């Protein structure tokens, strides 16, 4: 077996994702403006304007700080949704495949039904229901919209990762060491913890990266439709604003697009590389 070497694009992808995660965590400590700071003198400045590298849009928002602030929201939402959705999906998928029977058929068909609804439709419907106030005329506070958004995207992720976990568990739970552990009277909990989870996890992580891309795109789509984070601080929100500003400030559109595309390309690429490594590992067994 030759040692797997990462190629240059893979390093780029890791670097970009590392940067995005860094911004998501520490972005608020960086010396950049809040996204709502208006630079009145610089309205409509093109990129490379001194002090405003990425330019300023027609609202007077600096795009560079917008990207950094946006990374905080977009990446944060994506990581939390995929983390939660992955955990719940894994729990359901692994137990379903391990215990089989009716419970399994129920879980599996639920996954399939949910997967037959397009991602965005599902997320939209959930957002619409969850963000409804008792008093419908009262505005929904931002924190609640954020929570709503995360819950909705989590629900989208659960069947995607759950199905992967289920398939992987099905493949592993027939292996000799699991059967042996069972016959030796090991408790199911321990078997799952010691033998199933460590083997299912790599596949889950690989697809998890792809799922981050899915969530980032979904969040941006919702923002474009006007049902995302209301004050438009995420990358999707910047896109939505940039869209209205298309004619005079194209940079207000293409810079967030580039940020978004780089991130999704990176997550997809890393997911792909990890999955390729897995296939090779499986191939050797």
């Amino acid at each position, binding site marked *: 077996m030759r040692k797997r070497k990462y190629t240059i694009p893979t390093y780029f992808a890791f670097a970009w994702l590392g940067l995005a995660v860094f911004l998501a965590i520490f972005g608020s400590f960086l010396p950049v403006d809040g996204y709502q700071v208006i630079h009145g003198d610089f309205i409509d400045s093109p990129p490379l304007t001194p002090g405003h590298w990425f330019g300023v849009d027609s609202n007077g928002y600096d795009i560079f700080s917008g990207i950094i602030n946006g990374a905080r929201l977009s990446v944060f939402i994506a990581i939390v949704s995929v983390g939660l959705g992955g955990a719940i999906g894994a729990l359901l998928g692994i137990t379903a495949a391990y215990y089989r029977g009716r419970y399994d058929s129920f879980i599996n068909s639920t996954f399939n039904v949910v997967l037959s609804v397009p991602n965005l439709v599902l997320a*939209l419907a959930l957002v*619409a229901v969850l963000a*409804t106030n008792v008093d419908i005329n009262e505005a929904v506070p931002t924190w609640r919209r954020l929570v709503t958004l995360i819950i909705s995207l989590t629900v989208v992720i659960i069947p995607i990762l759950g199905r992967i976990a289920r398939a992987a568990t099905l493949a592993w739970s027939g292996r000799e060491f699991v059967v042996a552990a069972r016959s030796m009277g090991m408790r199911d909990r321990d078997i799952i913890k010691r033998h199933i989870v460590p083997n299912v996890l790599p596949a889950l992580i690989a697809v998890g990266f792809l799922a981050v891309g899915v969530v980032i*795109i979904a969040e941006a789509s919702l923002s474009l*439709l006007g049902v995302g984070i209301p004050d438009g601080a995420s990358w999707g929100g910047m896109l939505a604003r940039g869209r209205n500003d*298309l004619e005079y400030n194209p940079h207000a559109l*293409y810079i967030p697009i580039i940020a978004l595309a780089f991130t999704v390309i990176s997550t997809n690429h890393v997911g792909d590389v990890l999955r390729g490594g897995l296939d090779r590992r499986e191939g050797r067994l």
Partner: protein
Amino acid sequence: MRGSFWVQRFAQLLITVFCVTFGCSLLVQLLPVSPAEILLPVGSPEERELLTKEIGLDRGPIGYYLKWLGEFVQGDFGDIYYSGGTESVSSRLAVAFPRSIWLMIYTQVLSLAVAIPLGVWSAYRVGKRADKAISNTLFTLSSIPNFAIALILVLILGVRLQWLPTLDYQPYSAGIWEHFKHMIMPVVSLSVGLIAAYTRLLRADMIAALREDYILMAASKGLTDRRILWRHAFRPSSVTLFTSAALNMGALIGGAIVIETIFATYGVGFEVFAAISGRQYIALQSIVGLISIFYVVFNLIVDILAGYVDPRTRDRRVNA
């Protein structure tokens, strides 16, 4: 034996339709307020009472669903409620469906027309430069969200060059060129991701097929590579491709929400969005029901076609 296979398959798909629409109707029950209040924000309590009865909300979750189902199968898709009055969902869909169908057909035709030659070619040249170039380019393009592609197209072709209209839909009756002009950008934006996905699927299956003995056999007959690729390898490799293409049809009809909004195509996807954001739950349920019926129909069609493309699948069904 084969009969029972179809019955089973059909039942499976019907259950999916049930679950999706029932899930939809459950959403209404999850609301913290009565839908009547949302639908008639300025109505009097009596009017709301009447509406509650009319849409069956007083019958509990199951009764509500059954009432909707009864009307749905009779072709009554319910109404959309405005402050001023109502509009029937069917009349809205009569406008939206053809738009979405055209969008879907053009997108599929374009995607397959590009993906099939690319997939066959890159499988033929697997590992060579052409294959790597195709795979990498498509991978990158497919990672760019379709709305981003749409917005870039609008920026370049619509705003800068002014070649294509950026908004609206024109029917055939407005002239073929007008019709196409309004379709090009939405179709291209939707196709990019599909081309990548289809090419990838076909390439993988073609590579597997090209390793088969029957390809060597075909080569030993003295056939040209072109003939081997198309006549011997493509057909057995195409089943997965067409299956996934069929699965996409439902998503393309109801799921092209962002693209339909950006280009103001206002097809079914937009109606879904409008129903959701306008809290028109009955309309939503009916539209989603219709979409999932499409999904079922396309699925069955593909199952039938797969039997013709690859006769082995017929045999497998008999065994199953």
